[in-house]
């Protein structure tokens, strides 16, 4: 039997006096005593590699070239195919060379140099070509396993790895002084143990690598897909477009490309498209030399978003050259609006002075006038810009009209529905807003639905300062959306602190979470800010208001000290809780300091400002209220309620003049003339 290694055939122990024996030295020694030294065999393999590898490299050169080119082009399958072909070709070459040398000369070049010979175990003769061929194939397969099976030269009594056993060969040495004979029992035990553990380790490493490769491969494939979608094709934009086959031929600008660019610009303006996507779309058109003006507009918007103001101006000059201003064209109006916006951004960074303020007001007015006439006859991107302006000015009717005129792909549609619900809420049409929210929820993915519910729940509970029935619906929606996060709501909550803070409000208002429940939740949290925040909520439930305040204060203090903006929603929420709980202006010092430091901030910053104005009026801290109100109004014209409170505070503080000017400049339609000037009665701070 070929695989039986306990050689006990009739030729066992036969002297190598057979003239056919390639390595016959004339010595009358049993074949077992002529076995080659394992180190000689290893050295022979190295010598073979030195000779064969350059040859193999030459043979696989075409595959190697193909693999390099495929790698350069990112063609993974072609690369894999070329590498596989190279490996098989090299293995084939090794098999042919080994077969030839062993069957003709009795050993590979390395073995011949080291005076080793491969002989048949049944007579010490030179192996037959088929045996040599079989031996070479198995040798190559063992090489794939990093040569681990070759360790059998120590572990097998007659020093035969699998390739020797399957072809029934032995490797002997012609030099008697280098012959080692059969392996001893301790040597075999040691080698077998080492071989087994090495094989186990190699297998483990291979499996681990395979898993890692799979993960990497998936990640790379996903990244490639994303790059493909966002960079080359930009799926978000493509979705709404006609198929390329509908393009007009002839090398001229096609409506397809124009639509595509216009949609990308619109989506980016309203904030539902990445910068990279708009850049890719613009680059695509520019380097096709098509729709260049529109593409330059896209590039200018991208440059502006990157904060490269000079580059933005260079692109805008191409969109609408100063000497050929076509003021009525949508492109030029958009370009001019962007120029004004970049000037405003520069002015806001400049040192505050009367002249700066005048320049800001002048530009704001120009921008407003320019956007005022934008209507359905204009391009989508211009309407999106006008919508942005209307939202900033809290002009709800105008915003609704513009929203109704926007058409586009799914993402834009979802934005329009979502924004409509928000505008309706801000306009005080809460029932319509709730209906809009409910109908919008179906259009959104779970994350988007949670985000919308968060907005409503947060605004309702935040602005009213308590848990009114109106907030219940929105907060219930949020709780449902959060619960549906693949059974891992906590993990998702922690990834989105702004949703987490709204969710905590929802729980406080409508789930009557007990202190113990809060503490149990706290145990599952990893984020330090979240832990402190939840601890404060637990303390509130226990009625330890002062301790809760200390906790909220520590969150704000830590933010002020470290400047770490990663947990801003927690800080904002802690600030608002402190504002709700304050009994005197002194208790608001830290929060006011934080609010001023953050200015000008986002939507939530504005909300906190409005909340502070209300609270400061309640506490009759008129001057501070005017200070905050003015800053808010400078950031964006405020709603009627805030303006009313601001006017009251200004009158009480004796600063009505400055507030009137601010209001008139920023919101001519709603000067404070008609506002009531009497203060409300002082009320104690609301409890959430």
């Amino acid at each position, binding site marked *: 039997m070929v695989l039986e290694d306990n050689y006990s055939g009739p030729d066992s122990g036969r002297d190598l006096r057979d003239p056919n024996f390639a390595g016959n030295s004339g010595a009358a020694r049993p074949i077992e005593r002529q076995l080659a030294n394992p180190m000689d065999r290893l050295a022979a393999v190295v*010598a073979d590699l030195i000779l064969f590898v350059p040859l193999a490299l030459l043979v696989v050169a075409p595959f190697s*070239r193909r693999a390099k080119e495929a790698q350069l082009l990112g063609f993974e399958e072609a690369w894999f195919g070329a590498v596989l072909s190279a490996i098989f070709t090299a293995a084939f070459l090794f098999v042919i060379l080994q077969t030839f040398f062993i069957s003709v000369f009795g050993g590979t070049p390395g073995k011949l140099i080291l005076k080793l010979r491969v002989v048949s175990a049944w007579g010490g003769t030179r192996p037959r070509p088929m045996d040599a061929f079989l031996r070479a194939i198995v040798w190559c397969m063992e090489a794939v396993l990093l040569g681990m099976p070759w360790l059998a030269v120590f572990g097998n009594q007659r020093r035969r790895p699998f390739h020797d056993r399957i072809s029934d060969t032995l490797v002997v040495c012609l030099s008697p002084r280098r012959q080692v004979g059969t392996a001893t029992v301790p040597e075999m035990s040691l080698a077998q143990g080492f071989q087994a553990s090495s094989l186990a380790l190699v297998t483990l490493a291979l499996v681990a690598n395979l898993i890692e490769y799979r993960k990497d491969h998936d990640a790379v494939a996903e990244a490639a897909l994303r790059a493909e979608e966002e960079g080359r094709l930009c799926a978000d934009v493509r979705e709404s477009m006609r198929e390329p086959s509908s393009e007009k031929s002839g090398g001229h600008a096609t409506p397809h490309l124009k639509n595509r660019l216009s949609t990308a610009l619109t989506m980016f303006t309203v904030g539902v498209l990445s910068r990279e996507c708009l850049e890719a779309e613009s680059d*695509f058109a520019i380097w096709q030399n098509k729709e260049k003006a529109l593409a330059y507009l896209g590039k200018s918007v991208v440059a502006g978003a990157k904060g490269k103001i000079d580059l933005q101006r260079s692109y805008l000059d191409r969109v609408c050259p100063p000497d050929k201003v076509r003021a009525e064209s949508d492109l030029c109006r958009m370009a001019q609006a962007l120029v004004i916006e970049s000037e405003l951004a520069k002015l806001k960074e400049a040192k505050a002075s009367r002249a700066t303020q005048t320049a800001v007001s002048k530009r704001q007015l120009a921008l407003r006038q320019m956007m005022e006439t934008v209507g359905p006859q204009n391009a989508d991107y211009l309407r999106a810009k006008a919508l942005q302006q209307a939202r900033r000015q809290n002009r709800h009717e105008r915003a609704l009209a513009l929203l109704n005129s926007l058409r586009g792909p799914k993402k834009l549609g979802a934005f329009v529905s979502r924004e409509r619900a928000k505008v309706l809420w801000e306009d005080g049409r809460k029932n319509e807003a709730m209906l809009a929210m409910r109908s919008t929820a179906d259009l959104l993915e779970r994350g988007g639905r949670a985000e919308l519910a968060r907005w409503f729940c947060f605004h309702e509970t935040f602005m009213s300062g308590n848990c009114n029935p109106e907030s219940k619906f929105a907060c219930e929606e949020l709780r449902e959306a959060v619960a549906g996060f693949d059974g891992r709501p906590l993990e998702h909550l922690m990834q989105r602190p702004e949703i987490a803070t709204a969710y905590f409000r929802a729980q406080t208002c409508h789930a009557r979470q007990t202190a113990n429940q809060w503490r149990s939740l706290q145990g599952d949290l990893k984020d330090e800010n979240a832990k402190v925040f939840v601890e404060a909520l637990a303390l509130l439930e226990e009625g330890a208001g002062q301790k809760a305040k200390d906790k909220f204060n520590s969150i704000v203090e830590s933010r002020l000290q470290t400047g770490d903006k990663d947990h801003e929603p927690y800080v904002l929420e802690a600030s608002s809780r402190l504002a709700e709980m304050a009994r005197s202006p002194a208790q608001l010092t830290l929060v006011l300091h934080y609010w001023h430091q953050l200015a000008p901030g986002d939507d939530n910053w504005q909300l906190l400002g409005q909340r502070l104005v209300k609270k400061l009026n309640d506490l009759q801290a008129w001057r501070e209220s005017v200070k905050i109100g003015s800053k808010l109004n400078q950031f964006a014209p405020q709603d009627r309620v805030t303006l009313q409170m601001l006017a009251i505070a200004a009158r009480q503080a004796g600063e009505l003049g400055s507030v009137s000017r601010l209001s008139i400049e920023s919101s001519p339609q709603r000067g404070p003339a008609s506002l009531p000037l009497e203060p409300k009665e002082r009320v104690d701070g609301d409890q959430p």
Partner: protein
Amino acid sequence: MIFPILRGILTPLQAPITFLLLALNLFVFLGTADQFFEADSQLESLTGDKDFLEVQGLAFATMIRGNKSGFSDVLGELAQKSLTGDIKSRQILGTLAFRNVAFMGNAETFDFGGDEVALEKWRSRFVEVQKLQSRHPSYLWGISRIKSDLIQFVSYQFSHSGFLHLFWNMIFLLIFGSFIESKLGGSFVILTYLGSGVGGALAFASISGISAAPLIGASAAVSGLIALVGMVWHKREKLKFFFWLLPIDGYFGMISLPSWVILFVSLLPDLSGFFSTGRDFGAVAYSAHLGGAAFGVIMAIFYRQGILQKEAEDGPNDQAPQNPFRKAG
């Protein structure tokens, strides 16, 4: 590992021509080192910018799109990918553009269309790059589209792109140059060195085409010396090599092997490299090495045919070492 030792490194008195060539190489390297490294670092800072490379890649892609038949399929594919938004392809093309004669020669005035704002910025930097290249030692001494006169066909053989490049070329020059000088005479060394250098440059120009990146280094000349040794002594005697199979006593040391082994271990990798590297992507000029080796073979044939006569008798014969394994046996 196997490394030719031959007669080892002889003294300057035993091999004056070889040492003269070595001195020339060192002199050029040391004389231009300051200028070289300064220009190199300036070039690197100019061309290392990703935005610059991307715009250059797009510009090159536009050029390729306009003349697809003038460029390889791979470049065509890269151009297509670049123009449809693939950032990596843009950067690769941007780098390859530096090697392309058509691009480097015409880019300054070529009408690319495309993003004129980005191109304006790129062009001003590109002009700076070209100015730097025109005074870079590698471009002054090497063969490139900027300079490829007769003098560059010789001067490139003495200029190197870095210490390691110089070190290995000089090691081989000393081993093979001094061996040939001691066996055949100094005129064989100088003739083979210069002739192989020119042969290598001609092969490079005709097979790979003169690139925008400079061809420099003594590799082609040294390949000629190696080929000469491999061919002249391929039957007559065995030469000394150092071998290293295992880090165990008895498995490394000196060994005598036939001289064709030199051709096998030195020139086969060049052949593989040549066939496995596309024309547009070769950083190592394999064709120049092969051209140099071809000249060395021609010199060997002339010698064996008696057309060229050796100057000196063989020096004291270096005893070829015995096979260590035979000794052990």
